[in-house]
């Protein structure tokens, strides 16, 4: 009797572990439009109304806890904000003059850069958050039924948050800037040099703007914004000028310069976000579709590692 119980217990443990490993292997190996991914999306479609309801019902509890933390932070932030306002006021005057010149130059050169105006913003509420140590993904309550597609940029009132990586009918998974697979082409506010913003290795809550030319001028406190498409061959998913973060320090140990960037969006406390969906037929939609096709092609031939740098940079480089 005892032996039978022991055998059954061990068999069950073995079965569950093997099942988990099979799921893990199959999920990790399949393309984003594979069967397990679609099961997951269907599950989210069923669960998201409950999650949404629970999220709304539990909001007062969440706000109560957040209130204590926010009050403690508010005092220290006030002095910093006042100092920053003064600095920004001075910068605004200079920027307004520059802006006028910029528009004149654009008109003269007939340049047509893909801007935020090409997108249709959709407001969404964060209904789920990955509780692991990397804080890398969140689930939102808007999906394909609201026009949300894979690779749509996601922002909040502070700045760039991430991009959509999976979309179900009534929910979507957003990969945050701090996710190790994210990469956004960006530039330092006043500079024309562009680089790639990625999570800082070893510190999942910080970002690193790398691959900047060694002669790039960068100072702590400067703003880092998305650069948009710089080279037509390597289109960016993100429109230019979206605020990413602030330079905290500059590293010059290699041939390229890199700067540490603190994200402006508080990725630990996301509540309402905005998905920049692309209107059908627009340049943004075509670009998003192109990237999806490239990623699908890459997943299909992932066995052959030599897929070409262009595909990899399109997937990571955003």
């Amino acid at each position, binding site marked *: 009797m005892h032996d039978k119980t022991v055998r059954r217990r061990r068999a069950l443990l073995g079965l569950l572990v093997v099942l*988990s490993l099979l799921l893990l292997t199959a999920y990790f190996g399949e393309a984003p439009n594979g069967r397990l991914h679609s099961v997951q999306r269907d*599950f989210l479609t069923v669960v998201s109304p409950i999650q949404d309801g629970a999220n709304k019902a539990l909001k007062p*509890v969440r706000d109560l806890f957040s209130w204590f933390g926010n009050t403690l932070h508010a005092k220290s932030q006030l002095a910093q904000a006042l100092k920053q306002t003064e600095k920004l006021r001075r910068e605004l005057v200079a920027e307004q003059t520059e802006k006028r010149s910029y528009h004149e130059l654009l008109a003269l050169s007939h340049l047509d850069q893909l801007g935020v105006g090409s997108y249709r913003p959709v407001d969404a509420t964060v209904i789920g958050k990955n*509780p692991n140590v990397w804080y890398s993904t969140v689930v939102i309550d808007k999906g394909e039924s609201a026009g949300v597609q894979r690779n749509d940029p996601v922002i909040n009132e502070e700045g760039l948050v991430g991009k959509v990586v999976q979309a179900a009918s009534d929910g979507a998974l957003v990969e945050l800037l701090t996710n190790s697979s994210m990469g956004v082409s960006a530039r330092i506010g006043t500079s024309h040099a562009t680089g790639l913003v990625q999570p800082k290795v070893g510190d*999942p809550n910080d970002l690193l703007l790398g691959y900047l030319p060694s002669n790039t001028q960068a100072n702590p406190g400067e703003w880092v914004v998305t650069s948009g498409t710089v080279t037509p061959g390597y289109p960016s998913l993100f429109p230019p000028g979206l605020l990413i973060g602030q330079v905290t320090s500059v590293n010059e140990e290699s041939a390229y310069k890199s700067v540490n960037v603190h994200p402006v969006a508080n990725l630990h406390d996301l509540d309402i976000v905005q998905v920049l969906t692309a209107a059908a037929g627009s340049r943004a939609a075509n670009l998003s579709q192109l990237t999806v096709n490239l990623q699908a092609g890459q997943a299909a031939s992932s066995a052959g590692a030599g897929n070409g740098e262009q595909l990899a940079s399109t997937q990571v480089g955003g």
Partner: protein
Amino acid sequence: MSAGVSRTLALRIGVLTLIVVFFQIGVVSEVPVFGVNAELCALLVAFVGLLCGSITGAVVGFAVGLFIDLALLQTLGLTSLIFTLIGYWCGRLRELRDPQAGLTPLLVGVSASALALVGYSLMEFMLGVDAPVSFQLLRVIVLGVVVNTIFALPMYALTRRALEGAMPEDPRRRRRRAYTTGGLSPLSKA
């Protein structure tokens, strides 16, 4: 599940699991304490294992992990693998040692949290997250364990309260009764 696990117990565990998972996703994941989030689901699995045994612990661990992976669109099988092992290990602790000390839930909570956080990090590394073991990561893991320690005793009380009356028999009580009825007494063999 073991034969001792009644339908009432399964129902209670199911309801408790749903409440805790939605509370984790909706509130706890949104409210950082000392910069990290508590991991109530790992504690729930550990305490279900501690109170109900290894088989129930492993099954609940697998189910909770799978639910989280599905609801948060995470890599399927990752959380279920870790939670299955936590539930099983806590259940075996009960079956082999049957610890009765008041601080047992605290120690089990700390161990389960550490196992969950380290296990999750290791799995993520193996799956290709580009981040070496750093001071920052260790800090987050240690703080995560500390925060979970704070929630361990209330979570144990909640789990025990929710499952009270439907739990399988206490192994210590079972042993004691076996002695009194002569079943396992060495004297009865003489």
